């Protein structure tokens, strides 16, 4: 067990956890931020995705010892009122079904849109295909990403 300092959603936190504990469990069990989900533990499903400097990273692959002194944004930090353009687009396209993979999908989309503000279908498929949705929301997700891209461009204007 070690004391580890990290920043989550712009707030400095200190947690006392096992060095090997993956960030996903620090977020969910220690900080009670359960919007970040655990789906596979081997970095293939994407449901534990969080943002670091705007880039999507997988919190199940970051042990506590490596998470220290870094800053992460979870779905709760994107906005609690669904006002972020990605969340808005997700609502407007009614993407979610069971909803479990969706925080990870939304944050993965945020990372995609940072690098590709106007993504092609191929770019969407390349980035989003690393994440798994068992309900099969993919076609609506693609629409939502295009809509979010438009909303983000509007916001910048």
């Amino acid at each position, binding site marked *: 067990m070690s004391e580890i300092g990290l920043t989550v959603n712009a707030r400095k936190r200190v947690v006392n956890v096992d060095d090997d504990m993956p960030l996903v469990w620090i977020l969910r069990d220690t900080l009670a931020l359960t919007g970040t989900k655990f789906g596979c533990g081997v970095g293939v499903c994407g449901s534990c995705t969080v943002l670091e400097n705007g880039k999507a990273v997988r919190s199940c692959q970051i042990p506590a010892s490596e998470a220290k002194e870094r800053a992460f944004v979870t779905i709760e930090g994107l906005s609690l009122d*669904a006002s972020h353009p990605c969340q808005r687009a997700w609502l407007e396209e009614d993407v979610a*079904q069971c909803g479990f993979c969706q925080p990870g999908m939304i944050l993965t989309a945020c990372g995609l849109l940072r690098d590709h503000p106007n993504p092609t279908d191929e770019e969407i498929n390349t980035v*989003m295909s690393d994440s798994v949705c*068992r309900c099969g929301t993919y076609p609506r997700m693609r629409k939502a990403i295009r809509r979010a891209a438009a909303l983000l461009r509007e916001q910048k204007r």
Partner: protein
Amino acid sequence: MAKIPSGKLPDGAGWQPALPKAERDTVMSATIGPARSRVDGRLKVTGAAKYSVEFEVPECAYGWTVESNIAKGKITAIDAKAAQGAPGVLAVLTHLNTPKFKSAPKKEGGGGGSGIRNEERFPLNDDEVHYAGQYVALVVAKTIEQARHAASLVLVSYAPEEPLLTMEAAEHKAEKPKKNNDEHVQIKKGDVEAALKDASLVKIEQTYITPTETHNPIEMSGTIAVWEGDQKLTLYDATQFVKGVQNILAHAFGLELENVRIICPFVGGAFGCKGAVWMHVLLAAMGAKVAGVPVKMHVTRRNMFVGAGHRTPTRQTLSLAATRDGKLQAIQHVSETLTSTVGQFTESCGARSTGVMYESPAIRVEETVFPVNVSTPTFMRAPGECPGTYALECALDELAIALKIDPVALRLANHADNHPIKNVPFSAKHLKEAYQLGAEKFGWAKRNPEPRSMRDGDLLVGWGMATATYPAHKMSAAAKVQLRANNTATVQCATHDLGTGAYTAFTQISSEQLGLPFENITFELGKSDFPFGPVAGGSNSTGTVGTAIHEVAGLLHKALAELAVKDSKSPLFNLKTDDIAMVAPGRIGLKNDTTKSDAYADILKRAGKDSLEVQSEQKPPEENKKLAFQSWGAHFCEVKIDPLLPRVQVTRVVSVMNCGRIVSAKTARSQIMGGVVMGIGMALTEETSYDPGTGLPVTRNLADYHVPTNADVPEIDVAFVGEPDFAFNPIGARGMGEIGITGIAAAIANAVYHATGKRIRDLPITQDKLI
């Protein structure tokens, strides 16, 4: 190969043109409810929706299991000393020290409240090992890391026995079950043998294989068990059946039913694997009881392949005989499937496809089940219908080619107006319109039937189609409503939202039935404290719970009428309550003179009441034996395949469904799309493989078990035809969670044949099989 005449949209037997567009739109506006967005959408995009293991319980410990690495035998010794002494450990449970579970509820069929146990045993109560991966010990510790570490220190010794792992090995134990629940699964009508021997008929006989598939919802199963004293138990459990879990846990621990509470407001996908009570649920409760602390148990992704069910593999042999003009004279469907040695779950492929789909003077369905030392299978989205339609619809495609008839025309020529076995008419069946609309939307008339004849640049293009079908199931439910004087209402039922859209659909049905604005309704589910809701399975929830809402709305209107007729200030004063009903939103009045009416809010205010509460009774559903109730649909799909590296890409899907009334247009469309996406996985990527020596799955994570992702899934055009099926229930809805996955694997396999000229009869259709 002989040139097949170019496929034109057929003019088959009984073909009727679809309604003109204007008329079609009028019918459909009554059939398809408003396109509401999900009421729980905001919770789901902000991370605020709370799934079962996310409830905060103070001082909660963690459970971690030890699993058997042999498939059959006895445990001869367990050395748990090191584990017991490991840091943070609160208890180590094995069969040597675990208290006996009390009893299991008597089994009831259908949607009864008895609960579902697919694995019909209690964990850690004896030394027998029935399958590899069986839980043989449970460690409870303060942290998850401590529990996992201590579990690795438990040493188990076994006396292994030779396991039965295949159909061939289990031949001597094979059984031919007469029934699956109430449904006959061995069917014989007419003289199948004579038709199959008739030299004047065209025949097809082929065997189709489907592998083990695993549900893999992204939320894994999990439970938090909390005891208050030794007589009260609360479980936060990821389940499709809160009332079933309540009943089984009450029996297992000898508790009063009302002292067992099950809470599950959101389920992160289930597809069947959270319908039964699996061993981890009983273990969490037992671990919490023995350790004296609340216990949280996550089933690991690895164990989701063993401890929460799977779709059993099937081997199906189809024999068809037809006249040269395409009239079926015999269909024989012989299916062989596996089950475990500790359960009776069976996947009735033939009865649920060939037993309902086409007219034929002779039909035979046979089902053989082989019990093996593999963990217990369970329902997975359309159990029976899904693999059954795959085999039958591929065989029909092979027959269409042999007959040189368009696949749609062949299906129309054998359309069943009546149930082929029960011989009663199908209610509100609009399958012909589904074929027509699907063919129109897809552009099927442009299909050149010659295999390998259609290209897109270098890519081979294939077009395939298949029929979809799923029965309309009816169970029983009750509901409670509280109407408030401000014209808002809360409606409750112990039903579930697995991502299906139940919250939204039931809010819509409540709004319509109660006569209150959508925004004024709060619909609550997922708690065993609420009135009875059946398992969220068999696509029954919308119709069953919708009927309960219909009944409770009637009771509410009656209760309001009783207040009004006693109130001298009401326009309804002294009238008979039987003559009064809802006449407009928010108003009850005289059925035959709507000028006499009164507003709910006014009635309550004058009676000095802030609210009015009524509850309906759970009663067995009414059976209508004069009609057969079944949903239908047609899938059309396009695949593109690089001939040099034959990876199949599904590029276009049109699915037209006939499911009675569509309560909630958006969520319904999403359900069909979801079924199609899972069907793409079934056709092309999904397979759980087992080690032939141990019977343990070797695909035990999402890296090895390939679920479709974004790039595998094209745009999916979903449309609905038909009319509300009010002969089935007062809501007119037949349900739609499962039909989307039926037939789609066949449509894809048929398109692959059309593209390549290669018929792959064992799923999934991977590259190696096409090279």
